[in-house]
């Protein structure tokens, strides 16, 4: 199976690899997937108190090229977005952007789950009632 150029680019030059202080009040961490399934993503967001925008995002992923590209792309999209807008990122946007084949759609689902888990963690830490958004809007 051939990968799209965008997947290859994110795989070779992954954006925002790293770790944020998970104990910081402004940081939300999402850890999804399982080693037994061959995919684990850890995605973190750091929210700016003053603006309410996502100031930074970092990831590390154990998985195939598409999983790494999906999480790398997600961190790129998250930066500068409000938490509400971040909630609207839909896995199909990732599929489209990276031209993922059907067998790799689960990678994008995992990335969406990681975003949502990171936001949930941030909201819980800050006593914010979680917002649920129907995935109808598109991003990017």
């Amino acid at each position, binding site marked *: *199976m051939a*990968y799209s150029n965008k997947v290859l680019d994110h*795989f070779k030059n*992954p954006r925002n*690899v790293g*770790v944020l202080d998970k104990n910081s009040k402004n940081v939300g961490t999402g*850890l*999804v*997937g*399982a*080693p*037994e*399934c*061959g*995919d*684990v*993503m*850890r995605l973190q967001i750091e929210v700016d108190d003053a603006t309410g925008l996502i100031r930074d995002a970092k990831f*590390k*992923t*154990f*998985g*195939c*090229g598409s*999983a*790494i590209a999906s999480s790398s792309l997600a961190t790129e999209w998250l930066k500068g977005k409000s938490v509400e807008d971040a909630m609207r990122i839909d896995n199909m946007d990732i599929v489209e952007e990276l031209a993922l084949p*059907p*067998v790799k759609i*689960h990678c994008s*689902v*995992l990335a969406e*789950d990681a975003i949502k888990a990171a936001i949930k963690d941030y909201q819980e830490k800050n006593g914010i009632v979680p917002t649920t958004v129907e995935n109808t809007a598109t991003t990017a």
Partner: protein
Amino acid sequence: MEKRRLIYLDNNATTPCDPRVVEAMIPFFFEKHGNAASRSHQFGWEAEEAVDYAREQIAQLIGADEKEIIFTSGATEANNLAIKGVFEMYARKGNHIITAETEHKAVLDTCKHLEKLGAEVTYLKVKEDGQVDLAELDAAIKPGTILVSIMWANNETGVIQPMREIAQICEKHGVLFHSDATQAVGKIPTNPREVGIHLMSFTGHKMYGPKGVGALYVSRKNPRVKVTAQMDGGGHERGMRSGTLNVPGIVGFGKAAEIARLEMAQDAERVSKLRDKLENALTKLEETKVNGNIQSRMPHVSNISFKHVEGEGLMMTFNQNIAVSSGSACTSASLEPSYVLVGMGLGDDLAHSSIRFSLGRFTTEEEVDYAIEAVTNGVNHMRDLSPIWEMYKDGVDLTKIEWSAH
């Protein structure tokens, strides 16, 4: 890294056709295009003679009589013919077949098919080293057992089964023994009569011959084994496999067998040194594990798990330059890791983290050196990206984490 020729370390998937084989085949496409079954003219005689010669070359490689070689389209067909053919032919004797969980799908799925037709199949588990447990095999045989089918060498790990011991158990109980020897023939000595195998499947394209041609060895004396044909037609191959013979393919298969017979020992010695060099270098990386019995293993294969690195992702770091295959079936919709590795007791996580390197006749030391460097870099790159490697390094007990299986 400079641009270079793609390095092929996936010889268990298929081997390149040896140029000497290609050369032998060429006349049989145009000049000598005859049908080996045409008895009335020169074209047919010529083709028949070429097929007979190839049959001899192949029989010689495995120490068989040329009448014991039944040509097929490949090892999958040979496995089908052997197992289904015995099931039908010996139906009056019983319906019980014994095989192992780590067999190739061509054997496993054939057995599953027969279960629907009334066969009873025992799938033996293998030990951690990949070998079947002889006591378990012995205990599994019962009065209705008609066939034991155990592969000679495993495609994913290269682990060689204790063939003689299995044959002795079959002999003791008077049960037929079939072996899928696809990965072994042409690379290590494989003499079915000497070992006590009654049916043996193998194929051209795993031994530097062409694709689309294989053979089933069927013992003709002590015991004389018969299989029911699975392909009806003109009664070719002594009635066991109808269909016009693939003359160029068979000629190439024969040539490949001859080369293998003459060069096997030196090939094996050279390639095993390269394999050991690769394996020794890669297992110097932290948290690596060689899968399968290394005392009883094909000379050209190494299956290594790189902990906390996903196999397909790892391959992607170097697959512009090196071709290997992975125990992580992440490319298939099932997301299931290799059943062979899981069958050996490897956790799903380690199975996802494994890479199979299979070297071959045309692998050079320079290529191995390059592969060592590229794979090492790839593992380090993937570990830098891996959250579970980071956790492992931080002393987190990964088994204590509640993972969200998906």
